[in-house]
């Protein structure tokens, strides 16, 4: 595997291999010297053409723990904001010898377009493209679920996961539906019909408009961020009504089955899709998701780059 663009690129075996590697990497993160020499001398570019501090620093931490050289390239203050094309940016990074580009972009398909182009030869990792996919988020979510509900090994067979909220605009949901299903879990999407895409009936999921009916049966509930701007596009009448039907609150928390976990990809709108007492409850694994994000991203970088290095014939031999 050269790139990670979409969960569709993964097989159950390769997905499990990433999770198993992440498990190893989490030991590095837990030790006092959080560093491996694996990617010494490799150059990794964080190409963030859409604001995202959380994902960027997670990838940065992952790359640095593997001893790679990290260059941060963000839209603000860069040539991209002056109208430079993705092509020119990619060719510039190629000329600088980037071994991998981690791209975050507001346009769906940007990562695939970059990988399919002949503008650069390095690996491309999709760190979120528009409303399409965010594969490393899904991997860290699967890793977190497995750790809590699967004993830390094996796949997710037999588990039920609810994804609640703005499915229509969510790259996290698109990646998670594919990955959780690939690993054997059953996914239930819970959202108002306005926030489900036309065509969702073709997805391998169950659909519900009734959060209260779903909460008692699932092993994990993943709350998605709802952007208040959506209200102006008639997706829902007002924040209060949204919270009333689709928000996770104290009353609903009590209906979860024992052992069920609460997840959120962040950043949260406390009080809208999730109340503070739910976000901070003992069932919440939201902070841990962030920790696991670094391990999973270390695993992805390791598998893409260290693997490639071995395949390439050495110049001296």
């Amino acid at each position, binding site marked *: 595997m050269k790139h990670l663009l979409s969960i569709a690129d993964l097989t159950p075996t390769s997905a499990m291999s990433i999770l198993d590697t992440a498990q190893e990497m989490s030991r590095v993160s837990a030790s006092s010297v959080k560093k491996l020499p694996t990617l010494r001398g490799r150059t990794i570019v964080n190409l963030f053409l859409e604001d995202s501090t959380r994902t960027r620093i997670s990838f940065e931490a992952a790359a640095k723990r593997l001893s790679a050289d990290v260059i941060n390239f963000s839209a603000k203050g860069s040539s991209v904001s002056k109208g430079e*094309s*993705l*092509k020119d940016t990619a060719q510039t990074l190629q000329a600088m010898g980037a071994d991998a580009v981690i791209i975050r*972009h*507001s*346009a*769906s*398909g*940007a990562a*695939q*377009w970059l990988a*399919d182009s002949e503008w650069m030869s390095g690996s491309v990792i999709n760190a979120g*493209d*528009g*409303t*399409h*996919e965010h594969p490393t988020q899904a991997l860290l979510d699967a890793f977190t679920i497995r750790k809590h509900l699967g004993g830390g090994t094996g796949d997710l067979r037999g588990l039920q996961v609810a994804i609640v909220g703005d499915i229509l605009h969510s*790259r996290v949901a*698109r990646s998670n539906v594919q990955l959780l299903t690939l690993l054997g879990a059953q996914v239930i999407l819970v959202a108002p019909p306005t926030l489900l*895409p*036309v*065509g*969702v009936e*073709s*997805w391998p999921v169950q659909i519900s408009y009734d959060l209260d009916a779903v909460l008692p049966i699932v092993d994990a509930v993943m709350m998605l961020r709802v952007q208040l701007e959506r209200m102006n596009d008639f997706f829902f009448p007002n924040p209060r009504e949204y919270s009333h039907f689709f928000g996770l609150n104290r009353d609903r928390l009590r209906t979860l089955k024992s052992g069920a976990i609460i997840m959120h990809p962040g950043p949260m709108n406390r009080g809208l899709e999730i109340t503070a007492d739910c976000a901070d409850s003992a069932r919440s694994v939201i902070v841990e998701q962030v920790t696991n994000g670094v391990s999973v991203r270390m695993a992805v970088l390791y598998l893409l780059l260290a693997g490639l290095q071995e395949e390439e014939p050495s110049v001296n031999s």
Partner: protein
Amino acid sequence: MSNYLIKGGALADGSKRDLYIADGLIVEKGSAITHPAIASAIVIDASNSLVLPGFVDLHTHLREPGREDTETVLSGSRSGAAGGFTALSAMANTSPVADTAGVVEQVFRLGQEAGLCDVFPIGAVTQGLLGKSLSEIGAMAQSAARVRVFSDDGNCVADPMVMRRALEYIKQFDGVIAQHAQDPDLTQGAQMNEGIVSSRLGLRGWPAVAEEAIIARDVLLADHVQSRIHICHLTTAGGVEIVRWAKARGIQVTAEVTPHHLLLTDDEAISYNPVYKVNPPLRTQADVMALREGLADGTIDIVSTDHAPHPTESKECEWQEAAFGMIGLETAFSIVQATMIDSGLMTWTDLVNRMSIAPAKIGKYEKQGLDLMVGSPANLTIVNPSLSWRVDRDLVKSRSRNTPFHGLELPGVVIATMFNGNVTHG
């Protein structure tokens, strides 16, 4: 002016006829030409080929004035001639917009100077294509360009009252409104057909209903004011149904389909390659089959290319940043042969009707779309259906390279094109 003998070809009905062309006209037609000047004629070998009336494209974007970097009336005419066309209608969304007599006369004159086909400018329905107030429809109709087709193509005439008035106003010139049917509110930021593929790709959906709602409204308006409406680039099965219903009611509606909507589906977007980004978007296989059926049974009257040249940088970028549109003049005939003739849905006579006779009638282009009769202007194309060719975007006559068919092997080669008795291709 040279005289020509087109020898050994068959007409659309399959009958073998030679044609003798002189002074821009078909002078003699038969199995053995006896004209005394025959010895001086340049012989065009049409054996194994069909000799058909020149194609008429009611919907092109020739980009002049304003975007001469992507196409000019001359380069567009060359591209048309290479595709077998002898007449092109040029849409009004130029810069400046063709909403005055001055601009349409300029385009018309550029077409005459190029001399490779008739170029008929289409006038804007509303000033600046803004959908607010009517453009100088009368002045354009009376100008040297004699405009009869009016369209805001690229934009929909969305305001129902503006549409109603436009439909009424053009009646005095025997005009037609060519509507780009797209409800702007239902398609804000839309990127591709809304359906299973868009749900997966995370590209904002362009629902079929956004097209069908406008078609339904406009056929009812045309009925109410007894005027002529032409539906540009129909793409949905539902749209075909509405037009079929309107025709059965006797409403004066005509409709067109593009070659790309006859062949390609929204599955192409999976590549995120913006060469497949087009307005209206590529739809589903069920829509493609309904469009073919509609074209075959005459619900859809004509094939138009919606030839839309764009510079490389507008297509070599992220999908949502890319421009909408594809070039199509040089591949149109082959796509129609592949989808409609080779599939057994239409005859060659049907093809001549859909690509020459009917579009000329809609546009009131009197010297185009005529049967190849003695005395008719020699506007014709010679095609060999049994040859095939491979599309190469680097070899197109258009100034732009944005063809979605690059690398595709297609049946049917345009051997030669003749406009007013002059060979313009071949």
